[in-house]
């Protein structure tokens, strides 16, 4: 299956987002793919506030069936969440559960003024009423596959399809 060029999509997202960015804008990436994407967007959009990253392991809704995730990274929100307009960034939007967990976690830091979702790819098949305000593209992924973002040594972003 032919996958779109992640770099192109990323450039397109930058174009979409630029009008919305102000000195007060905050950005938070969801580990791990969302953080890679957010690092690029954050740099290219020149966002003033330092970038935040959250690991949703403690907020997942499948803890009771799958246990705690094997590698947990620390969440870092280096700014005050209360009253902020936050751009929440993830690589692939799928069932919507990751985004729900991320929002729950963000709310434990404080009450944001708004959250807008930014994703590189929307693969549909939502299980919760979640949508992206900014998306690089839409795609249908064959059953049994997972769409993932990769990053090369040099920082180049690529999309790939893994077995689920």
């Amino acid at each position, binding site marked *: 299956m032919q996958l779109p060029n992640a770099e192109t999509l990323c450039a397109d997202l930058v174009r979409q987002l630029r009008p919305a960015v102000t000195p007060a804008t905050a950005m938070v990436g969801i580990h791990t793919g969302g953080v890679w994407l957010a690092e690029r967007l954050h740099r290219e959009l020149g966002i003033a506030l330092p970038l935040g990253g959250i690991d949703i392991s403690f907020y997942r809704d499948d803890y009771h069936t799958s*246990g705690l995730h094997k590698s947990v990274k620390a969440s870092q929100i280096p700014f005050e*969440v209360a009253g902020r307009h936050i751009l929440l960034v993830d690589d692939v939007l799928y069932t919507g559960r990751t985004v729900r967990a991320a929002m729950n976690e963000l709310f434990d830091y404080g009450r944001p003024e708004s959250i807008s979702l930014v994703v590189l790819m929307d693969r549909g098949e939502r299980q919760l009423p979640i949508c992206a305000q900014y998306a690089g593209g839409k795609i249908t992924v064959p059953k049994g596959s997972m769409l993932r973002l990769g990053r090369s040594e040099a920082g180049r972003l690529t999309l790939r399809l893994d077995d689920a």
Partner: protein
Amino acid sequence: MRNPQLNEHGELTHLLTLEGLPREVITHILDTAASFVGVTEREVKKVPLLRGKSVFNLFFENSTRTRTTFEIAAKRLSADVINLNINTSSTQKGETLLDTVDNLSAMHADMFVVRHAQSGAAHMIARHVGPERHVINAGDGRHAHPTQGLLDAYTIRHYKRDFARLSVAIVGDILHSRVARSLIHVLNILGAPDVRVIGPQTLLPAGVAALGARVFHDMHQGLADADVVVMLRLQSERMRGPLLPSAQEFFKCYGLTPEKLAAAKPDAIVMHPGPMNRGIEIDSAVADGPRSVILPQVTFGIAVRMAVMSIVAGN
């Protein structure tokens, strides 16, 4: 015989002792704890992992400090916490330990945090509870205090990074200390090459060398170039009797003063599981001094216990 702490998939389902745990399990706990340290610095200091779960603190031995840190850890995981001080409850009326556990299980306890004066109590309870229940040993007799060993390891890792070159000296009543045993185990598992115990012969158990430690009776020799000094608490009942003549003589020979600490490396850290007996095992100048990391140990303790509970409850 399968390690009673692991389920049939080799995952940690109880935490009873650090002895025999694979290195990966230990590092996973420490890494997870690092993530929890950040939680305590937020506005909402909770995560929802154990929401709806009941954690029963079964303390057969009094300890407000340890019980409080477990309570805080459980609440930060959004669990419901019930504290049971068994001195004043049914066991006084002759109910057996296992009957108490059965009754509490019937009240839908998901996790038991157990402290008991007898070695092996936590193992016994873990053998007895059903598959969906988890037991965390908060200290059993002189046998083990695994969460303390883990938070000590976390503290050392925080300040010293790499275990591969460390000299760690543990000082005091090793004979009666579950803290010492757990610490020796975890240091050996993490690869610390030089673990030392320092104390008079009366306070060192028969098999301490086999545990994996070098024995010293002299503080200056034992502390020479140490990177980490861990002072153990001396219980008052031990201070006067067949094991030791007096607290004063103990302080003279084994109390950590700035002068004795000078034998260790200039950047050595000083640890203590608490509560401290100032002037008996440790001088105030050292306890409050720049090398002491005794207070950070307490903070790390909460994160470590959150990590242990969340890993164990998910398996």
